[in-house]
């Protein structure tokens, strides 16, 4: 579309009234930021994917089955969107929260009474956290029943199970932070379960809590894990997860019947 752009530029001032966007789109500043041509030709669409950092995570073309919702139910994508919502809402909550006893609890009170949108952002954070656990589990079920973990995606399944565990830990560590009765006793019960592991049980529990009981040390540890360590881990592992999904050509390409290959496969089976 480069030639078209030049034509527009020389076509006269009246075009800028009919197409006000063109003036900006042809300006040097805009062209230096968005370098790909208009995505209305195959080349333009490919260039859009190549030259946009955020779209670079996508391949230029995807198998056509991916376009249909029922192929993947888009559960992995929804989980990633929820992770994004949690990242943004969590950042806002961090502005008003101190992970110390008893400030934590009073900060939660202040948040819901005298911080602009405090209660709303906290609600968003809580419900998207619960939703994310649900969606990640549904994603696991979908991948299993559609057999998407089969070669060459075996290890991506293992990574996915790891991400499920991290999602649960993420939710669990966040559960303590309001420091109310609900949080305190849920974490007490939850960490007691970890205490049953033989040999390491009480050690791992004490390591998690920074003591023998849920107290100020546990609050600080859960806070650090919740806002820094586990999110960093999830971000890295999620990148590998998505990268492998893409490299393996999404879970649909090897389901297509390949007419030339079928007889060979059957012969091999018969021999075996």
């Amino acid at each position, binding site marked *: 579309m480069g030639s078209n752009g030049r034509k527009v530029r020389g076509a006269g001032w009246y075009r800028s009234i009919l197409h006000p966007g063109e003036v900006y789109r042809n300006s040097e500043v805009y062209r230096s930021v968005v370098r790909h041509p208009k995505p209305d030709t195959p080349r333009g669409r490919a260039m859009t994917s190549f030259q946009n950092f955020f779209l670079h995570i996508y391949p230029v073309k995807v*198998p056509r089955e991916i376009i249909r919702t029922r192929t993947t139910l888009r559960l992995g994508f929804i989980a990633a969107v929820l992770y994004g919502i949690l990242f943004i809402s969590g950042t806002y909550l961090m502005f008003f929260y101190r992970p110390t006893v008893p400030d934590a609890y009073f900060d939660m009170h202040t948040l819901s009474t005298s911080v602009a949108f405090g209660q709303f952002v906290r609600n968003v954070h809580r419900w998207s956290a619960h939703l994310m656990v649900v969606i990640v589990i549904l994603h696991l079920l979908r991948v299993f029943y559609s057999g998407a973990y089969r070669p060459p995606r075996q*290890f991506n399944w293992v990574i996915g199970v790891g991400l499920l565990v991290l999602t649960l830990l993420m939710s669990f560590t966040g559960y303590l932070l309001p420091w109310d009765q609900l949080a305190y006793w849920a974490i007490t019960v939850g960490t007691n379960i970890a205490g049953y592991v033989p040999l390491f049980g009480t050690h791992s529990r004490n390591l998690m809590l920074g003591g023998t009981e849920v107290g100020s040390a546990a609050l600080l540890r859960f806070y650090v894990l919740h806002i820094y360590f586990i999110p960093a881990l999830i971000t890295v592992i999620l990148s590998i997860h998505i990268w492998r999904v893409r490299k393996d050509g999404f879970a649909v390409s090897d389901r297509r019947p390949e007419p030339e290959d079928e007889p060979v496969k059957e012969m091999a089976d018969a021999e075996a």
Partner: protein
Amino acid sequence: MPKPEEEPRFRLLGVVPQEVQQRDRQEPDDGVFTWPHLLIRHVAVAAGTIAVVFVLAILFNAPLKDIANPNQTPEVAKAPWYFAGLQELLSHFTPMVAGVLIPGAALLWLVALPYIDRGKGWRVRDRKYVVVVFTVIAVTALVLTVIGTFFRGPAWSWVWPWQHMYAEP
């Protein structure tokens, strides 16, 4: 002995493993452009997800009870709902079995699943064994979680959800 001109001549340019050829053939060449076909759907799904979360956030407030008090055990102390199944399991078996062996074995099996599955294809009929085991694990976990979350009250006694709801989000 044929003359040099008639003799067929070859040169080995390279040896390609068979697997690589198959990989190449699997690349979908009839794919559709990500921009706009997939992207517009992703934008729509993202907008829908945000809308659902916002509606939930407007309708229901996140709970905040009294300040944590180690000396005052509440009527019912439940783990977060995704661990309520474990808690329910713990009320039936010894901690060693319910807290370690059963969940540990289930998680290990789940991790090793792609290497356990020796089925010939991706369809359910091609891998009946893993589908049955996985479904048993999934249904058991679901039933335990629902019981632990909605059907348990003080001292982990059975309480019907319509009598009193002890579930806490």
